[in-house]
């Protein structure tokens, strides 16, 4: 899967989880860019992304992801 296929689906997940239909993420988006992206919402986000793309993040990935770009790379590699 390439980023053009993934990004729109991922964007929908972000909009649902953060309850903001105007949200638009790109590779450089970080938790600092989204007001409600704290450690608690991160857990919901991870669960929702895992369910959307049918994959499981590794523990090191969950705690180490720095931006949406890194998330995209993992999804591109293992997502469905």
């Amino acid at each position, binding site marked *: 899967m390439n980023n053009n296929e993934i990004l729109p689906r991922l964007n929908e*997940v972000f909009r*649902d*989880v*953060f*309850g903001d239909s105007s949200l638009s993420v790109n590779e450089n988006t970080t938790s600092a860019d989204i007001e409600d992206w704290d450690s*608690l919402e991160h*857990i*919901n986000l991870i*669960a*929702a992304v895992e*369910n*959307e793309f049918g994959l499981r993040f590794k*523990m090191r990935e*969950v*705690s180490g992801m720095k931006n949406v770009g890194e998330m995209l790379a993992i999804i591109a590699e293992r997502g469905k």
Partner: protein
Amino acid sequence: MRELNFPFDGKDIIRRRLALRKQLLADGCVRVKKRIAVLGGSTTNHIVSALELFLLNFGIEPEFYLSEYNKFYEDAVFGNPELDSFDPDVIYIHTTSRNLTMLPESPAETAETVEHKLNDQFAYFKQVWDSLKQHFSCPVIQNNFELPLFRRTGSYDGWSTAGHAAFIQRMNVMLLDYARNTRGLYIHDINYLSAVCGLANWHDAEAWYLYKYAMSTNVIPDFAYSLACIIKSIYGKNHKVIDLDLDNTLWGGVIGDDGQEGIEIGQETAVGQAFSEFQSFIKGYKDYGVLLAVCSKNDEENALLGLNHPCGVLKSTDFVSIKANWEPKDRNIAETAADLSLGLDSFVFIDDNPAECAIIEGQLPMVQTINLSTVHEAMYKLTRSGFFEVTAVSDDDMHRSEMYAANAQRAAQLRSFESYEDYLLSLDMHAVICGFEPVYIQRITQLTNKSNQFNLTTRRYSEDEIQKVSTSPDHICICGRLLDKFGDNGIVSVVIGKCRDKELDIELWLMSCRVLKRDMELAMLDELVRRAKDKGITRINGFYYKTHKNSMVAELYSSFGFTLDKKLDNGDSEWHLDIEGYENKNKVIKIRDKENPE
């Protein structure tokens, strides 16, 4: 909201939580507010956010206090000013097998040391409950313990002296023995829930390492739903009626076509056995106070023929209402609701025909439906839906069905009397009106939480609050039980007044709708006035707080001869009655002094 009814899509709920929450809060429903303290032995945030959705959907608006991470023991035993000022209505202790600190460590441990550990571990939790009970008089909900996923020794782990699964199961038995004998302590059975979800789905070690979650995020909605069912049950928000279709729902086949000998029920065929099991399962609900009704497109004669099949478990007398006709089912359900003086939101409708279920969902959205494709699926949905989650069983529950059936008989008799008073006199009614005796406390609490229509102030009380006012010298508390020639209606009316010098403020006046128009309210007023005079009271003040369900009592005080003092724009009103020279109003109910029947 249908998305939040069982069976729900847990993954969707996790993802769209914020949107669902917004939608619920904007739907204009009137909800009771409850403060819920969550004392956690692991991270509780996501359980709480899912719990909030389900409670809102059950008509409860929660406010939460969350203990610091894994501080359930400290908060409970040593106290916490923040928790004190929160003043919880319910306390939920979120612990799991992760919080068992005294599990056996080696097969070398003797039965005695393991026994010691078990007792110490139990004492640790008991300390939590006892101390909460002392500080807060409110219900406490405690999880039991789920089995571990990993077993070093296989089945042996489940029965050996030092086995962890064995230890956990013994703990669970100690827990339930204690809870059964402790008022206000409720067990949330996560041992069942984890089994039904599957231990391999339930446990997620990584979620523990990453977030200190005691279970997988994917089962959190199931978890929160099951917990929400206990809370709504404590606050009397259960459903009350199962309204059933007949053909291919209570038996196999179509009675009108196949005839009594043609339908399948009983032990002769596999299909017959399945429907027999279903009938037994449904019949069992009666003993818990659930009412059964029939809503079927059939000639009544045929419906009765089917219900009186010699191999049937359910008989026509098990139902408080049988609507067998060719009218639309939504109309029949609405009529049944009116006949029983119950709200449509107390109904669960079961039908094998998906089209009938869809019509009900469209026409009567407050009715819950179960589309029966197989009887076992329907039994599973009834089980998991929590519509009839039980938190207490009163004597009344066991006899509710008979009382409603007696009501139907009374209605039949009414037709043959000259005047209504003649009819009332013929009922040979007796009332026992007394203070809040200990045996009635549970029933009184139940009534304060579920009476909506004949309820002047709709004030809700916990069991402990009822206990408190029952012995308070500043309150006059009376409850009334009504008996007549058809049976005992049980405790049907509750009045609480608070004394202020020579005045009495009526804080609560409610009556069960099953005794409407029997003059029981007059008997209650007579007794209230008598007790007030004994206390030197000269004036009684009444209050009517309007809700969307209690318009039937808007003029109750006026009918009693009270004077209107104030009427507000929102429909609330205040009244008073000077009781000097008061003459008893009840003429049709004989008052018994003593509890024991004549």
